[in-house]
């Protein structure tokens, strides 16, 4: 997000990215598909995009009312190139039309697959699977049903509270 800030991308677009990006990723999509099915994974993608678009509208409205003025931003000049949109490593490109070298593509691919992906995600998946299995076996089903059952008015807010990203990390 720092390149976005320095490039002066409008707040509404930044909020779209900030809201939608943590909600889903290709890894999350396939893991949700494996655990809960593809329909649920697609529903989560649609929800993430919808929330991103809604946050763009709201931020645009706030910006038009002047609530987001005097922020620490560098103005966007008409000719200034914007940074790559990827969340990971950026690739130096000579010109907008030129393609990055195969060596650079290979480096980013390897970094994304091995360092950021395999190393971190496999470990996190192992922990997640262990905790999920422990809850499934050790916590009584009736207790979970009493908290998250359809009859409880607080089941959805409670589930949303448990799903806050910092609590999931």
């Amino acid at each position, binding site marked *: 997000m720092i390149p976005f800030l320095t490039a002066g991308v409008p707040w509404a677009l930044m909020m779209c990215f900030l809201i939608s990006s943590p909600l889903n990723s290709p890894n999350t999509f396939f893991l949700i598909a494996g655990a809960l099915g593809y329909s649920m994974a697609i529903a989560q993608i649609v929800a993430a995009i919808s929330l991103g678009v809604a946050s763009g509208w709201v931020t645009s409205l706030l910006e038009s009312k002047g609530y987001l003025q005097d922020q620490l931003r560098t103005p966007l000049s008409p000719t200034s190139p914007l940074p*790559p*949109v990827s969340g990971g490593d950026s690739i130096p490109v000579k010109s*907008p039309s030129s393609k*990055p070298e195969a060596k650079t593509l290979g480096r980013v691919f390897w970094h994304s697959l091995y360092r950021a992906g395999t190393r971190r995600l496999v470990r996190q*998946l192992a922990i997640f*699977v*262990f905790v999920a299995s422990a809850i499934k076996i050790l916590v009584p089903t009736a207790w979970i049903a009493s908290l998250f059952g359809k009859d409880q008015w607080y089941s959805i807010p409670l589930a949303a509270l448990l799903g806050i990203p910092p609590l999931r990390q």
Partner: protein
Amino acid sequence: MGFDSAVIVFKESVIFFLHLLPYLIAGLFVGAVLEVRLSRYKEIRWLKHPGTRAYMMVSLLGVGTPL
């Protein structure tokens, strides 16, 4: 009881992990390919024109890039 439960949890974890592993590998490959493909774009002119289409594209990029 405690040891038996631990063994059952361990077995269940291994089965669930092996079930999810192919999905994780697929997600990693797709994520890496998307990251490489999206990194090609140095200049994105539509970011300078906010609107519903731009919000949708940025949101799509947000969910398409591994963070």
